[in-house]
Structures are given as structure tokens and as C-alpha cells.
């Protein structure tokens, strides 16, 4: 099976460790991962902020870069949701692009979908002896409908102490450019999320999306959240012991 | 162009310029879901399960429920009317429902329609039947048909006693609507006494409609 890594632009620059973790998990399971170097950005920020014309070249670029793979895996719920849910809408009225999108989008998976649904694995042989709480990000929860998959993977991690997050399904307040355009409301939502994290007594808060985690982490590093630190769940799945 | 013609032409223009998709992904329903009829409420009308469900749902919304055989409606109504100054009824009220009541009976339309002021007097209770009752939602449907009278009868008095024959109890909302003989009659759905959720979005009973609702379910003698 040819698996392509869709790193996402935010992870490429800001969180390369998450990309390395995805590669490590898949290789540990005996798979080969390819990295199509032509990939850049999926265009989510542009499209969701209203810049459809600016997003379109990036949509075309994405479907070209990832054509021909059996599976495309991205460690980001919102970027994968952009490809799977929004690309078909954006391609309406352009039959050529629509065909290319319908070839690639259904084969684009968030990491937990690839592991659980396609590869049939929940125990990836990881060990992470810490107290962890899991925040199901909005796009993972309500667009991709990841459901229990990430938690099923985390539950199988050796030594992990998983704590339920109160009000888990509530948005953290990130929302892409919302965090800047409506910074006050975003901050109010963040404060409530950090308080919920603090109530779990967790050492780490895990999620499927580093952009939400950067926002949450930005609140946690100001002392909210009771000392919890943000971590992408792929890095937990890649871990083989103490950090 | 007058407003009517202009609005209709605006709509036609909107629909012609971009005709609605026949099966767009956003509106394509899964097989079997295009009609809500018969989706909900499968139990047999008048069955024990359905009666029990109706009573449960009525009580949950703070109505008082009594069960009795047909021969005892009069005595149960008499008990429920304790303390009332008068009972207002539709013209065709069965005589035996009032067999134990010795007080004043205000019969609407016999000969004159009852005035609002008369119905609003302290202690007046209303006694009616209903067209159909929906178990799943604890709903009584009044359609001004037999033994129900005008809408004002069950609105202005602060106490409503509704007699519901078991045979009129259906399981769900679709069966309730299907049982109504004439949709153009004034129809009132009553689910519990008057209530409001306007203070902190929590339900509290008792505003403008009748604050006391008694439901007498007439079950066949065993």
C-alpha cells in the first residue's frame, strides 16, 4: 500500500515533531511512508476566511501532488476535513477538478482513520506513562466524525492514565482567523477550556490538531490548565517510554 | 405591479435562475426517511402500554391523571370538582359525567354563549372530552368536535377536567393528526397545564392558561 504523508503547512514549519511521529508509528507497523515534496498548503485558511479565489490554486495543487496514492494521511483533523468535506463544494462547476477531487478526497485520512479503519490497528505498541486528557477537536468530532478512534488508540498505549475532559465536545475557541478577528470571544472560550483541563489534573492535553493545541498551549503557558502541556496524540502513539 | 404579483415573480425568478437540485447531497434523505408519517409511535391505539405511556407523560408535565371505568366518570368528576363554584361545559356534555355534581352547571350555548366574564369568575372549572390523545407526548387534542365546545371554554377557566376514552388514545404524533376528521376546525393541542420556560430556560407551570389540568382516562371495566 502506497501511503503519502500530508504534513500540512502548520506542522511543516511549527510542529515537525508531529510529522516525524506519524512516520515512526507507520514504519513501526511495517509500512513505508512517502512524502510528496510538491505539497504545500491545503488552502483551508484562505477558503474559511472567505478567500476562495486564493484557495483554488492550492486545491488544484493538492490533488495533483497526492494523485495516485492508495492513502493520504494527515495529522490534522481540520486540514483533512478541508480536503474531504470542503473540496467537493469548491470543485463544483469544474468537472475536471471535481473528478480529481473525487479520486483523492475519499482516500485522505486523519491518522486515526488510517490506523483503525484502513490498517485495522488499535495497539500501535506505544508506551507513555503519564496522565493525559483528550480534547476532541471540532473538525475531528463533527466534520470527520472520528468518534472514539483516537481514544481507542490512546487507551491501548502502555502506562497511560487517561482522564475524561469535562465539556470535551465544546470548542476551544481557536477557529482559524476567528482567534484574531474575535480575539476576545476566543480568549473567553480558551479560559473555560483551560479550566476544564486543569480540573483533570492531567500532565498532557492531547488532540488531533496542532492548530487547536497551539491555541490551547498558548493559554496553558500563561499558567492556566494546572501545568498541563499540549501534545499531538501522534507523538504519544510514537512514544516508547518516558519523555 | 402589486405586491402579490411582484413577490410571486421574484420567487419564480429566483427558482428559474438557479433551479433547486433534485437530489443534492445536502438534501438527499436516506431511503425510507422522506416521510415522517409512521416513523414514531408504533403501539396499538388504546392498548395498555399506550395508556400507561400517556399517564406517565401527563404526570411528568404536572397534569393529574385518574383512571376509571365508564360507569364511574360521574363520581370521579365530582371528586375533582370539589371546591369549584361552577362547572362550564359544552352543550352536548353527557349527563352521567355530572351525576355526582350538585353545583351550578354553565352549559355553553344553552341558550346563550357563555361570556368571557362568566368563565373568568373565581372557581369556575371546565369539563370536556377530547378528539384524540397522543401518548408519547402527553398531548390532548381538542378540535371543537363532540363534547369539546368552543375554544374559550378550556382557556379562560383556571381548571380544566378532560375525559379521555381509552379508545381515543394513540401512540404517536402522526396517528394523532391522522385521527382528526376536519383540519379546518379550530384545533388546540394541550400538553399539561400552562407553563413557561422563560425564566432561566427552566420549565415552571402556571401562567395564563388553566393552571390545573385533570385527565380522566376511561378504561374498560376488567
Amino acid at each position, binding site marked *: 500500500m502506497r501511503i503519502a504523508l500530508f504534513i500540512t503547512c502548520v506542522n511543516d514549519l511549527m510542529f515537525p515533531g508531529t510529522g516525524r511521529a506519524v512516520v515512526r508509528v507507520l514504519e513501526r507497523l511495517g509500512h513505508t511512508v512517502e512524502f510528496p515534496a510538491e505539497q504545500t498548503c491545503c488552502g483551508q485558511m484562505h477558503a474559511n476566511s472567505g478567500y476562495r479565489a486564493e484557495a483554488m490554486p492550492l486545491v488544484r495543487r493538492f490533488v495533483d501532488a497526492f494523485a495516485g496514492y492508495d492513502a493520504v494521511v494527515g495529522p490534522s483533523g481540520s486540514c483533512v476535513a478541508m480536503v474531504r468535506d470542503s473540496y467537493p463544494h469548491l470543485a463544483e462547476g469544474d468537472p475536471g477538478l471535481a473528478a480529481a477531487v473525487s479520486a483523492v478526497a475519499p482516500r485522505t485520512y486523519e491518522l486515526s482513520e488510517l490506523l483503525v479503519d484502513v490498517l485495522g490497528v488499535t495497539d500501535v505498541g506505544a508506551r507513555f506513562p503519564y496522565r493525559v486528557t483528550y480534547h476532541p477537536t471540532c473538525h475531528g468530532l463533527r466534520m470527520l466524525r472520528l468518534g472514539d478512534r483516537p481514544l481507542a488508540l490512546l487507551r491501548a498505549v502502555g502506562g497511560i492514565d487517561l482522564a475524561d475532559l469535562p465539556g470535551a465536545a465544546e470548542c476551544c475557541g481557536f*477557529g482559524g482567523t476567528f482567534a484574531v478577528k474575535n480575539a476576545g470571544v476566543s480568549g473567553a472560550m480558551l479560559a473555560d477550556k483551560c479550566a476544564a483541563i486543569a480540573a483533570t489534573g492531567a500532565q498532557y492535553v492531547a488532540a488531533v490538531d496542532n492548530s487547536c493545541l*497551539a491555541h490551547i498551549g498558548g493559554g496553558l503557558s500563561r499558567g492556566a490548565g494546572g501545568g498541563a502541556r499540549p501534545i499531538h496524540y501522534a507523538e504519544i502513539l510514537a512514544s516508547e517510554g518516558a519523555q | 405591479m402589486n405586491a402579490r404579483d411582484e413577490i410571486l415573480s421574484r*420567487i419564480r425568478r429566483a427558482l428559474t435562475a438557479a433551479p433547486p437540485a433534485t437530489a443534492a447531497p445536502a438534501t438527499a434523505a436516506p431511503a425510507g426517511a422522506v416521510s415522517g408519517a409512521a416513523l414514531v409511535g408504533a403501539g396499538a391505539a388504546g392498548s395498555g402500554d399506550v395508556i400507561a405511556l400517556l399517564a406517565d407523560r401527563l404526570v411528568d408535565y404536572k397534569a393529574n391523571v385518574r383512571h376509571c371505568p365508564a360507569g364511574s366518570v360521574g363520581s370521579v368528576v365530582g371528586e375533582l370538582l370539589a371546591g369549584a363554584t361552577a362547572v362550564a361545559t359544552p352543550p352536548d356534555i353527557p349527563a352521567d359525567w355530572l351525576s355526582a355534581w350538585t353545583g351550578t352547571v354553565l352549559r355553553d350555548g344553552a341558550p346563550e354563549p357563555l361570556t368571557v366574564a362568566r368563565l373568568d369568575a373565581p372557581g369556575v372549572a371546565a369539563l370536556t372530552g377530547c378528539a384524540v390523545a397522543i401518548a408519547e*407526548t402527553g398531548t390532548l387534542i381538542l378540535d371543537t368536535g363532540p363534547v369539546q365546545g368552543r*375554544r374559550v371554554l378550556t382557556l379562560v377557566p383556571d381548571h380544566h377536567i378532560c375525559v379521555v376514552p381509552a379508545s381515543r388514545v394513540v401512540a404517536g404524533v402522526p396517528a394523532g393528526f391522522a385521527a382528526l376528521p376536519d383540519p*379546518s376546525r379550530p384545533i388546540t393541542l394541550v400538553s*399539561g397545564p400552562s407553563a413557561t420556560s422563560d425564566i432561566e*430556560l427552566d420549565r415552571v407551570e402556571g*401562567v395564563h*392558561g388553566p393552571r390545573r389540568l385533570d385527565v380522566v382516562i376511561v378504561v374498560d371495566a376488567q
Partner: protein
Amino acid sequence: MTTVDRGSGHIVTPLPFPRYAARELGDAQLRTNLRRATHTIRDKRLRVVGEVPEWEALRWAGAATKDDALARLPALLEQFEAAATARGATVHWARDATEASAIVTDLVRSTGTTEVVKVKSMVTQEIRLNETLAEAGIAAVETDLAELIVQLADDAPSHILVPAIHYNRGQIRDIFRARMAGVDPDLGDAPAALAEAARRHLRAKFLTAKVGISGANFAIAETGTLVVVESEGNGRMCLTLPETLISVVGIEKLLPRFADLDVFLQLLPRSSTGERMNPYTSLWTGVTPGDGPQNVHIVLLDNGRTATLADPHGREALRCIRCSACLNVCPVYERVGGHAYGSVYPGPIGAIISPQLAGQDAGFNRSLPYASTLCGACFDACPVRIDIPRILVHLRQSGVDAKRGRPSAERTAMRALSFLMRDRRRYAAALRAARRGAAPLRLGRRRDTLRRLPWPLSAWTTSRDAPLPPGETFREWWSRERA
């Protein structure tokens, strides 16, 4: 591009959403009240929706019925008009808020009365009916408890279902004590006592009113029937006791058949008050001799609905049955309340329908589609499956497209980013530059975050730290290790 006729009235926000939001966020009591109320209703809704195993099928059925009605709207409106007229109602048509308010005002004037009782209705708020009646010397008495509270407080509604959601019981008691004529000066704050006070206050008005004014939740084309869904009995009073009844009905309220109510009377109460069924629902068809109002008028209103219908990517917003479930689950609404949206329609549905009805150029309506994180909770709660997040993005896009002629720093940045990301070499070089540019910021730091960024990114650091890029991008690592 054909022009469309936009609506007018109280559907235009006079200030940008973030400005109002900043004001509302400063009110700690408001936040506490909203949190308590929205969480109460969320739990109730989940409980009663959970009782219905066919819920998802009902949502699909509701959406399909509404779409079908919209696709056949001209024929259904004509059918409705004919059926209602045959039963003695008089049907009027109004292109916009001004025309509708004028029709209603003339009808009230012709009765000679100077006071009308009103059933709570969003559409009469939308067309500013009370203000127009007041200019004509006619007092409109709101009879819904929450509307009464807002009217007594001389405030604006902040929620579709519960316009006084921003007040708690203590505040409501204070408003009643200060503003309600003849109220018990020792009135307490128990909800039952407050409801009792409203009953006493309105009783005489109900029993003597000559004219009632309502909206309608549904209008049935097949039979000419109107439907009002309510709780307190104030609706029944207004619909039954006056001699004259005037109902203002948006043209999107049409349902083809009487039997379609099956689905909607299952969807609406559970979604709105979290009840299996609301206490009272009234249906009437024209005039019934000897029972209820003998002069029955219906005003069918466009006010931007046809403009909304003309947009194939946004028209599903017309499915809305005003249940307010989307408000109650919205994390943004929960923090700022309804006044922040500057329109009678707040929350997620307001963020789309205010700009759809009145246009994005009206006031600061263009700011409303950005009042969302696109978290998707509204779509999941919507009983008629309106994909609000998708329409929010669609409106952002059409709003941006409409302003392409004018300069904008944001667009310059978006264009530059898109340009960089269209080419692998430009993109890789930009990543390298960003990483190197950040490197000096790391010197001597023990943490990998920044507390303060320069404008315009300072908006990020007002409430959170910013992360710093590490020493190597992923693609640099890949080419070093794997390529």
C-alpha cells in the same frame, strides 16, 4: 448577475460584531446567566432527542419537506391564499418591512382601537411593527412572559425563543417591581411567583382586547391553516378572544400538506424548549362562526426571503423553523449573548440570515458570518439540517468577492500567502526564512513561546502565547534523513 430585493427592518447590525462582543464580554453577570440557561436547555434537549430513535430520519424528513415547499413556493402560496380566503380570511402581501407594518397599522386603525395584544413573534420584531404602531398612537402589549420582561425593561430581545434569557430571576423580579403597574412590592424571585405576577398583570388586557397580532410557526397550503406553537396560554388568549386577528407570516413558513405537521411538531418542541411537546399549539383556518376572531387577516411577507431563495448556496437557511437550538449550543452565543449580533436574529442562524435577508452591505452585516469558529455544533443541533458552517463560509466568500475592488491589508496578506504556497521552492524558502527569522527570538529563552507579537498578530497574544518554530522544518528533516 440579476439584482435581488433585500429586506429591511431590525435585521441590520449597526456596529461590527467584535465591537458589541467586547462590550458584552465585560458583563460577568450576563455570562453567568447565559451559561446557566444554555447549559440547562442543552441537557434537556439531549434528553428528549435521545428518546426518539428515529430522530435523524425526522431531521432528513423536515429538511426534505421544507426544500420541497421552497421549490414549489409560488403554487403553494396561491393555494394557501385561495384556501384561507375561502374560509373567510383576508390575505395581504408585503414586499418589505415598511409595507407589512403599514398594512397592519391600517388594519388596526380601522378598528378604532389604540391597544393590541401580541403573541410573541420574530417576524413582527423583524419588521419593527411595535415602533410603527407606536408612531400611529397604538400601544402593542407583548404578552409572552419573556417579551413582557424585555418590554418592561425597555430592552431588546436577546434570544429567538426566550428574549429575556440574559436576565436571571432576581433581575426579573427587580424589573417587575420597578416597572409593572400594581405589582406586589414584596414580590419574590421564585419563577412561579414571577409567572403569577405576569398572569395578574395581563389578565384584563386579554379579556378586553379588540385586536390580536401574531406570527405563525407554520402555514399549511392545502388547507389555509395557520399554526402557533407556545407555552403559556398567552397565544391562545390572543388567538381566541379578540374580534380581530392579524397574523404576519413569512413566505418561507409554508408547508404543502396538513400531514406535514407530523414531522415538524415532533422536531420543533424537542429542539426548542427541550419538551416532548410544548403546552399549547393552536391551529386555525380563516374564520369559524361563533368561535374566535371573526375578522381574520394574514399578511404574507417577503422582506429578503426571495433574495435568500435566489442564492442556491444559501437558500437552505429558509428551512429554519426558529427553534433556537443553534443558539443554545453555540459557544460564541454562550459568551456574548444575543445583543452582540445587532439583529433580532442572533446566534448562528442570525449570523447567516441577517446578511442574507438584508444584504451584507447593510450596516455591519458583513461582520456577522465571522462570528463563529465553524465548530459545527449548530449543524448537529439543527432539526432541519441547515449546514450553517458551510453557509457561513459561503457568505464570507461572497462578502470578500464583493469587495475585491477595494484595497485591504488582509487580502494582500492572503494573496501573498497563496502566491508563496503555489510553488514548492517559494514555499520551502519561505519556511526556511520564517524559521531563521524566529531563531534570534529563541536565544536565551527557556520557553518555546512568545508572550507578545507585533500588530496585527498582537490580537493573537492578547489572550495566549504564540509558539515559536523549532530549528528544522519537517521537509528539511525529511530531505536530510530520507530523501
